[in-house]
Structures are given as structure tokens and as C-alpha cells.
């Protein structure tokens, strides 16, 4: 609320919701956190790029970048400088305004997600009481940017990439939101900070199926490799950003990693207990968990080959959606029937339910079976 509405009443309300030992007033808090978010996101993206390229090298039994600086640690910096001084090319028959605006429209929402991510107890830009809904809403804008890129380039491969994105993102948004609802039901709040506070045991143990569905759907939403059909090199060259170069291409590259960072941070917050943890300071726990989730994401990337478009769509509608609905139903029953039950029986019950459901669905559900249908 307060981030959009700097009227006096909301300032007072906002100051009341701040932790008492927090320094400064509303605008100071705002300014500090904007700086913190930038200082967090940009180096983290650089670190992710380095980490992923080195890690992928390991997975593929090669070295990865190791020439620039010690252990190749300056490779992202060198790449950034290279990309900044490249020529900016705009297609002659493209829609120039749309082509220019697209990277910005894609980048801004990816950055805005971090406004509600708690780095520590109460350490977030705005503790919206609709936190997780805000995240879902804002991240749905990014697809418009990808769309504009595909259209403004006036290139058939760009357009195919953009069309694939739309089909994919709209389909996977439904299981994504349904799997979040399980967490919201247990914690009883939409606020990201309250969700973390409610996690005396990480929700991944109470919601194993929800975590699995969210993880897969999020990988599809941000177009990570098993689902990266919008830029499938073997089919459509580079997809939506085929006509982009220089700084604009760099922005799309940043968007890709900013979204991965955002998804890692949200999975950390929703399922892994956010900043909670023993001994170490809270922001360090947050960082460790974010890196853990990111490692899982690119582990999946380096292990599983790319799916076909019909397989991707079938997986969303025939597998993830029914499982997400069942998960929501089971969670609802558990919250109503066993509100005060001991955690351990519930944890084992949920793990058993997840195992049974996943095995069951993998038995009577086939991906395409060689037949191509969309």
C-alpha cells in the first residue's frame, strides 16, 4: 500500500507497522530499500550468471569461463562491457516504438517483485497485506514485454517465440497460483513477512506437493530450460530477442536472471522459511537458501532436455492442474479437520500423499506419445 500511496495517513500507518528499532521515517526507509534492492539484485544477477556458467561447465564435463580474473570471476563484467559498447540495431520494418519499449516493460516488473521480498525480519520495502498476490500480479506483466519484443521485431521467429510464451505462461499461471494457495491456507495471510513468521517448520515439509508444483510451474513461467520453447535455438534461432542487440539485449538477459532470482527468493520465502534459521544472521540464511534454490533450478536445466510444445501444454493441463486442485483440496481438509495436530504425522501423511499422487499420475498420463497435437 504505502509504496504507491505516500499520503499522510498511510505514512502514519506505515510508521506504526515498522519495527520500533528501525531507523528513519517513511521516505528514508523508501530510499534505503530502493538502494538495498538495487545493491542486492545487480550483484546477485552477476553472481548467478557466473555461478550458472561455471556450474553448467561442470555438469557438461568442460571448464566453463575461467580466463578473466581469478577463476573467471570477472567474466560477467567483461560480458556486460562488451554488450554495452555493441551497436544497437533496430529492424527497418519493425515497430520502432514497441521495439524500444519492450525490454523496459519486461525489466521493470521483474525488479518490482523485490519490493515485497523480506530479506530479514520486517526488512522489506513494503509489507503489503496482499504481498504474494502482488507478486503474482506484477510478474504477469513481464509477458507483455516479451510479446512486444516478438511483435515489434517484425520477424517470424520472434513472433513464434512470443506466441509460444503466451500459451505457456497463461497455462502455467493456473497451477502456480493454486499451489501458492496451499501455503496461504496454512499461514492464514497473504503478507510475505507474515508467511515467513508462520513457518515454525518450513512449509516445504507441510506442502511437499505444493512445492513441487510451484517449482515446475515457476520454471515454466520464467522459461527455464526444460520449458524454454520461446527461445529454442534448434527450432526458432533465438525466439523473441532475435532482433535485439547491445544494451536492449543485455536488458532481456538481465530480465531472465532477475526472474530466476525473484523465483528463488519467492520459493525461499514461501516454502523454505525465508530468513529464519539458527545461529547465522537472517540475511545470510536468506542468501544461502536463495543460492540453494538457484542451484536446484540450473541442476534441472542441465539434466532434462527441452520438451516439445505439445508436451509442455499437456503437462500443464493434464498433470499439474489436477494435482494442484487435489493439493488445494487436501490442504483445505487438513486445515479444517486437523488444525492442532502434531506436525510430524501431518508431514509424513503429506509426503505419502505426494508420493502416491505423483506415481499415480505418471502411470496413467502420457506426454504426447509421439503424436503431435497442440
Amino acid at each position: 500500500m504505502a509504496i504507491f500511496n505516500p499520503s499522510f495517513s498511510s505514512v502514519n500507518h506505515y510508521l506504526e507497522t515498522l519495527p520500533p528499532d528501525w531507523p528513519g521515517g517513511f521516505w528514508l526507509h523508501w530510499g534505503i530499500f530502493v538502494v538495498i534492492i538495487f545493491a542486492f539484485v545487480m550483484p546477485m544477477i552477476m553472481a548467478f550468471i557466473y555461478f550458472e556458467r561455471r556450474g553448467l561447465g561442470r555438469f557438461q564435463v568442460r571448464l566453463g569461463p575461467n580466463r578473466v580474473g581469478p577463476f573467471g570471476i570477472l567474466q560477467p563484467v567483461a560480458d556486460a562491457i562488451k554488450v554495452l559498447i555493441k551497436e544497437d540495431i533496430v529492424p527497418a520494418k519493425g515497430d520502432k516504438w514497441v521495439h524500444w519499449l519492450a525490454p523496459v516493460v519486461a525489466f521493470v516488473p521483474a525488479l518490482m517483485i523485490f519490493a515485497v521480498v523480506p530479506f530479514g525480519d520486517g526488512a522489506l520495502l513494503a509489507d503489503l497485506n496482499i504481498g504474494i498476490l502482488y507478486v503474482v500480479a506484477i510478474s504477469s506483466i513481464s509477458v507483455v514485454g516479451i510479446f512486444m519484443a516478438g511483435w515489434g521485431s517484425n520477424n517470424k521467429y520472434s513472433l513464434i517465440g512470443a506466441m509460444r510464451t503466451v500459451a505457456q505462461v497463461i497455462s502455467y499461471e493456473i497451477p502456480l497460483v493454486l499451489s501458492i494457495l496451499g501455503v496461504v491456507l496454512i499461514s492464514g495471510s497473504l503478507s510475505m513477512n507474515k508467511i515467513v513468521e508462520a513457518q515454525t517448520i518450513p512449509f516445504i515439509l507441510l506442502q511437499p506437493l505444493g512445492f513441487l508444483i510451484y517449482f515446475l510451474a515457476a520454471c515454466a513461467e520464467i522459461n527455464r530450460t526444460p520449458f524454454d520453447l520461446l527461445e529454442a535455438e534448434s527450432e526458432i534461432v533465438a525466439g523473441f530477442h532475435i532482433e535485439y542487440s547491445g544494451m536492449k539485449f543485455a536488458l532481456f538477459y538481465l530480465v531472465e536472471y532477475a526472474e530466476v532470482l525473484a523465483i528463488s527468493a519467492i520459493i525461499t520465502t514461501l516454502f523454505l522459511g525465508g530468513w529464519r534459521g539458527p545461529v547465522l544472521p537472517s540475511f545470510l540464511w536468506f542468501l544461502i537458501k536463495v543460492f540453494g534454490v538457484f542451484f536446484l533450478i540450473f541442476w534441472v536445466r542441465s539434466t532434462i532436455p527441452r520438451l516439445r510444445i505439445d508436451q509442455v501444454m499437456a503437462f500443464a493441463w493434464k498433470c499439474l492442474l489436477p494435482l494442484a486442485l487435489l493439493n488445494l483440496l487436501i490442504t483445505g481438509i487438513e486445515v479444517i479437520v486437523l488444525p492442532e495436530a502434531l506436525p510430524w504425522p501431518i508431514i509424513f501423511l503429506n509426503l505419502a500423499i505426494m508420493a502416491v499422487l505423483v506415481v499415480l499420475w505418471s502411470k496413467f498420463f502420457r506426454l504426447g506419445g509421439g503424436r503431435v497435437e497442440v
Partner: protein
Amino acid sequence: MMGLDIAFWVLAIIGIAAALAVVLLRDVFRAALSLILCFLTVAGIYVTLSADFLAAVQVLIYVGAISVLIILAIMLTREVQRGSPSGKLRIPAFVVAILFLGVVSFALINTPWQISQLPPLEPTTAALAVKLFGEGGFILAVEIAAVLLLAAILGAVVLVREK
């Protein structure tokens, strides 16, 4: 309340300009993008009215889903850049639109709106949930809307099914 006034006027002007652009732009794709801007300013106005849940849902449904579907439909049509040339009914349509605008403006200005003196509810989600699903709430309307949407989906499936 200065900040709120400024926010309202900025959002209102951008919103109306975007809405006009939707109608006046020849390029249908750009018109759809203006529609997205218009939806976003409406969400901004909801925020200034302390309706944060409604604002997030507005962005999620209208920007994230409906606009994207509109753009998808545009991509499946031909000769988008030439747009939709206006037909013979241009003048009558203009007259009807002006009449409608006049009636709506008249009704808006002459209605004695009741303004609550209470501070806005914080948080809004619980109150909304009670209104929608609680006793004496609007659960019937919610259910009817759901059935209506299901009927629309079934209709679409029947229409496109191969014989």
C-alpha cells in the same frame, strides 16, 4: 491529501488519454497496448482508494490475462498495421457514443454520493472474504459468476470442436 489529489489527476489524465488512444490508433497492436496502460491506471486509482486487493486483481486479470488474450487474437489476424477502417456507421456511432457519454456524465455529477467519514479498512482481504463468502454475503453471485464462466468455456469448446 495533496499527494492523493496529484496521484488521482495524473492517473485520470493518463487513463483517459490511453482510452482515447485505444479508439483512435489505427494500428490494432498499439491500441491493445494502450488498453493495457488504461487498465494499469485504473489499478492505480484503486490503490489511491485503499482497495489494494482489487488493484492487484485488476492487474492480474485484466493486464495479465485478458489483454494477453486480446493480443494473441490480434496476432492471429491479418493486416494488423492497416487496422480496422471505419465503416458507414461512423457518424451514427459517434452520435450514440456522445449521447451515452452525456447521460453517464449527467448521472455521475447529479448523484448525491455518500462519502464515508471512516478511515479505510486495514487489512482489506479479511473484510472482502467475509462479504463474499460469509453469512449474508454475496456467495450466490460468486457461484453464479463461476457457472457463467464454465458455460462460456463449454460453449467455446463446442464451437471449435471438430465434427
